[in-house]
């Protein structure tokens, strides 16, 4: 499959930014496959020393995919908001596909399959987080944004404060509250 072109993605990003929700649905599969292939390519390059952490590698791939230079962003906040949201969707999507595959039961000749004893237990956690985040967003979008930055965007408290133009104390307070609320929700 061909790698999606940055312009195609940029075009959809712009449409989405201007309020076209359908653009996001077109965008996601492109980002998903694009990231997959880019990540694989990085992986091949990296695998001898294998230093780059997978999440960081994905961020890098995302930057490459979207082509930072091709788009005029209103502000940094918007860029990071989109990037974090994309990463969240990609990973949740992956976890969901994975779970769907597992729940299909054992496949006929899946003899190399040694379904993970470790990750299997973890993926629902990510899905539960996603669900809790959706509830949080409807109640308090800023707090949801802070959580996405932290978990999926790789931003520090300082960076988040800067991007959102609020004080670090506010980010800390919001984070602490959101964290307590989310984890309680996830246990329900």
């Amino acid at each position, binding site marked *: *499959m061909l790698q999606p072109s940055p312009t195609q993605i940029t075009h959809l990003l712009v449409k989405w930014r201007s309020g076209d929700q359908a653009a996001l649905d077109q965008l996601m599969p492109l980002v998903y*496959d694009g*990231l*997959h*292939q*880019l*990540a*694989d*390519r*990085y*992986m*091949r390059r990296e*695998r001898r020393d*294998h230093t780059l*952490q*997978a*999440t960081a*590698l*994905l961020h890098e791939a995302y930057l490459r995919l979207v082509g930072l230079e091709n788009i005029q962003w209103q502000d940094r906040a918007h860029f990071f908001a989109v990037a974090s949201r994309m990463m969240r969707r*990609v*990973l949740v999507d*992956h*976890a969901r596909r*994975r779970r769907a*595959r597992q729940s299909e039961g*054992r*496949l*006929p*000749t*899946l*003899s*190399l*399959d*040694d*379904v*993970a*004893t*470790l*990750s299997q*237990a*973890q*993926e629902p*956690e*990510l899905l539960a*987080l996603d669900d809790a985040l959706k509830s949080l967003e409807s*109640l*308090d979008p800023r707090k949801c944004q802070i959580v996405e930055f932290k*978990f*999926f965007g790789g931003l520090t408290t300082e960076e988040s404060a800067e991007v959102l133009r609020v004080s670090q104390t506010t980010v800390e*307070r919001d984070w*602490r*509250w959101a*964290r*307590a*609320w989310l*984890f*309680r929700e996830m*246990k329900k």
Partner: protein
Amino acid sequence: MAEHWKQIEELFHRALQLEPGERQVFLDEACGADRKLRAEVESLLVSDGQAEQEEKEVQRAIHRVAEEFVEEGSLSEGRRRIGPYELVEELGRGGMGAVYLGQRADESYQKQVAIKLIKRGMDTDEVLARFRHERQILANLDHPNIARLLDGGTTEDGLPYFVMEHIEGQPIDQYCATRELSIFERLKLFRTVCSAVSYAHQNLVVHRDLKPGNILVTADGVVKLLDFGIAKLLHAEPGALTLTATAIGLRAMTPEYASPEQVRGETMTTASDVYSLGVLLYELLTGRRPYQFKGSTPLEIERVITVEEPPKPSTAVSRQPPVVNGRWPVEADDNRRWRDGHRTAKKLSRQLEGDLDNIVLMAIRKDPQRRYASVEQFSEDIRRHLAGRPVIARTDTLGYRAGKFVKRHRVGVGMAAAVLSLMIAIGAILAAQSARIARERDRAVAAEQVAAQQRTAAESERDRAIAAERVSERARDAERTQHNIAEANLARAQEAERQATSEAARANNEAARARTEAETARRVSEFLAGLFEVSDPSRAKGNTITAREILDKGAARITKDLKGQPKVQATMMDTMGRVYESLGLYDSAAPLHDEALKLRRQTLGAEHVEVARSLNNLAEVLRRKGDHETAESLYREALAMQRKLLGPEHADVAESLDNLAILLDTRGDYKAAEQLFREALEMRRKLLGREHAEVCETLNNLGELLRKKGDYEAAEPLFRDAIAIQRKQLGSEDPRLAITLDNLASLLYSKGDYVAAEPLYREALGIFRKVLGNEHPDVAINLNNLATLRYAKGDYDGAEPLYREALATYRKLLGEEHPNLGNIMHNLARTLHAKGDYAAADPLYRRALDLRRRKLREGHPDIAHSLVGFGLFLTDKGTPLDAEPLLREGLEIRRKAFSAGDWRTAEAQSVLGGCLAALKRYDEAEPLLVESYATLKAKRGDRDRTTQQTLKRLISLYEAWGKSEKAAPYRALLAQSDSSPK
């Protein structure tokens, strides 16, 4: 909501500013009566207390998913080709890579193949180098149950792939579950798996990754093993595994099937495959895996696999839930008719108890050296189990063999062998006890050590927690959470300490149990020693001790010396009872079996396989003693119990069917007996194979029944079959062979072939005397039969002493009331009658008839035997009027009991005809004699004694009637047959 939301948030932050101790007061005041608000804030505070830890876990989960996402990039869904293969569809994905259905794009070769693509991270240079090296070896594995490795290579972007024969099938565990295969079928299927693995081992290929997902069964029931040697290619040495382990976590390993040496990263050998197969068999038989992993950390997995002892399969089925809920027929049984209502885990447990437990546990021993030496040996042991032979997987070998020995030698063993078997059985109980004691002791000691370690750990953790609490107390302004953590730690430490204490208590219990077992062993060995004290010359007063004395002494002391050990007592009584029985000492055997039955009912409950065994034992002795009615009800009770516990098809059930049929046969209910014999025969052939000694027993019994019914044509091949198998399987000196020889001889006798019959009787008698000694009921029966043969030949002087010896032996062993005594007395009476000693014959005839009438059911053919013989005697004696009603009754019984045209009915007709002729009722006598003669001539031939007697009666009839002309042709026939060479 929004306002409420703000309020919650505000209270949350304000409470966080306070000490945990002050929060309650604050919330009381702030929330007032609003319980809902307060609950909301409180739950968030609790959540916040644990959030630090959980945040880390969520971060880890996100990283893991990201890693996976990146790794799977190499398997992205857009792939259309791999090497020269066109991909048809993706069949699945796993930790190692993806599996595709494909076909060659460049050739007319249309066959579909399975292609395994190894994902990025697994494609090290070593893997590729090894692959090239091993590929040829793997491609050469040519076995009908191994999926062929067809090809392999690397994709354009450098990923290795394997091309294999595409198999459409179900993993073996699912196959067994969906088809609800019986234990027997599962074992057979498993042996096929073994044969494939064994073949690969002979070709120096170890699978290393055997598990249900790698063992498929096609719709036609053909087993196919996948991925032979692939695991080795992927991580040959521990170093390679470590490398991949960082990339893919622990996903490459399937811990459930991994051997201890594998989780330790040591060399894997054929013994590792034996282990994995053992786990597989465990799962196929129980629906559970031997180990439960509480945590999924590599250390925990390693600990469980290398240290924990798995429960026995028979225990596992009643304790743990099955692997997959609802999919496993826990109640799977030895046949397809298992829906009959007795489907309990308990029953499955009983099927697994013993051999199968031992076989599985031997295969999954921790130490590779102590497992089966090869997959072939493993498979062979299962075969032996299926054939009812002793298996090698057994710690207490001695006891086990004794059990099988006594079972095999039930029919009768010689005095020496009987005592030997008794000694072996006693030794075995001892051996089993001491082995168990050693195990219990080891376990108790180990548990004590673990408990001690845990206590120490718990104590130091508690100390740490207390220290931490002090630190946090001193730094009151420091993070409040510290205090919470300290509290939690303290609680955890207290919990651990409590656990350690209960662990220690358990260890104490186990130690106590070990002490009890030791006490049992001491008592048994004292008991055994006591038995042999008589062999001390001073005590035995110079007399040679006999086996009988040892037995008597032992039997008398079981109750006293083994007090408080009811299970051991019952086992000893069972063994001794059977030894007495095999010695023909039924009066001594019966109370032992009776007592064993009571003990087993008390200790094991009303329904148990051992209770059924005792019922059978007791019934058999009672049958031999002649108490048919009680025996029948006991047999039926045992049979019903076994069917319920073991299912409708089981070797024990077949044995009970056979026993019950013998009883029905003895009681003269031939029709019911024949049906049961045939059922038992079919079951034994199916379960044990056609050439099994127990099959011969039923062949013999059925043959004997058919002989008694007069169906010689059907009976003879059964006996001959049985003899051929017995000579092959048992050698030439086994009492079971002697019994069949005896019966074949009786058949030949019944057919009138005295010449062929005699050597068979003699061979049987030789074996009996050698193995059983002279005083044994079977010897008496043989003597009777040989005497009868002599009588038939007219050798009355030769017959009489044999009958007298048989009679004396029987009376001595079985008293005056045994129905068989009637046969011997009647035969002796007949001989004396033939010799002309009417005075001696008369009372014997009468006593025989009287005994048979009392002991046998109405209409029993043996009663007819007495009636016809005595009737003839009375006619000869000159009192035909007394004879007539007896003869009519006898004829009637035979007509009913035997099929039309039977020679014995003809014989009764002939004797009655003679009687009527003596009463001068010639017109009544004539048709009887004519019909009788025709039948006898056809069935027995001209030269037969009874045929000739009938001819003589016909001639006398016509002479007395004054119709000499009618007598003439018969006279000619008589002269002709007399002069023909014998």
